[in-house]
């Protein structure tokens, strides 16, 4: 597991926790929960840029490269899709949708790390 994974681990867990608590407190999605999901997106973008630099610098992906990039691009779409889905109906349940993003990104980052090494 590399630094990219640990960044997403921390950001993803914090984001999921914030959204989960907001949902339990019966709050609709607000700046805090949406920005926490944006932070997940940002850390995934860091992973993307970092990975492009590493491959350009001659590093080799141990597993299937297209599987790695497939995971990364799908993960990048998740926060966007979830925020879109959440603000269409702003109820407490949308915060649970947002809470799913961090955990899912974390699982996908773990898989991406497995493929890379």
């Amino acid at each position, binding site marked *: 597991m590399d630094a990219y994974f640990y960044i997403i681990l921390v950001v993803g867990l914090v984001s999921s926790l914030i959204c989960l608590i907001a949902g339990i407190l019966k709050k609709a999605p607000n700046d805090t929960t949406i920005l926490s999901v944006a932070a997940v997106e940002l850390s995934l973008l860091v992973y993307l840029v970092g990975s492009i630099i590493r491959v350009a610098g001659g590093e080799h992906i141990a597993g299937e490269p297209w599987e790695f990039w*497939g995971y990364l691009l*799908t993960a990048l779409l998740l926060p966007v899709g979830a925020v879109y889905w959440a603000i269409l*109906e702003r109820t407490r*349940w*949308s915060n649970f949708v947002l809470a799913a993003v961090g955990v899912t990104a974390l699982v996908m980052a773990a898989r991406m790390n497995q493929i890379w090494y």
Partner: protein
Amino acid sequence: MTAKPSHEDTGTTPGTEPAPAAKDTRNTGPGRLLIAVYAVFAISATARAGYQILTKFSEAPLAYLLSAFAAVVYLVATVSLAKPGRTWFKVSVVAVLVELVGVLVVGALSVFDSVNFPHETVWSLFGRGYAFIPLLLPILGLIWLYRRRPAPKQA
């Protein structure tokens, strides 16, 4: 005494509450979370089945066809849950029931006949590889569908 407006409990502005005619939907409240989780499974199951079939189909055709079948079930469940109306409700019920039977049968086969079912699918070992969410999802789905079932037809 006048009733207080209670728009803060849903977070929506007053007047945008679903009209009685829009009752026959399942894409609201907890349903949105359900659909979101189904969508994640639809994407991951499709990607996984596609990968298995394209790269190593001959290793275990039955398991990988099962993967593809599971992917289709998740796709149908996601779309039908998001759509309003009686027909989509029926499609949802069938999809979620097929999913429940699938996870139970494939789960049991992978436990009792692991020689013939050694290859991973979403439903192997009752979805253990996915934190048992595949087992939980159809049960929650059926509860949700029951609670949001369409009103009986007018005679």
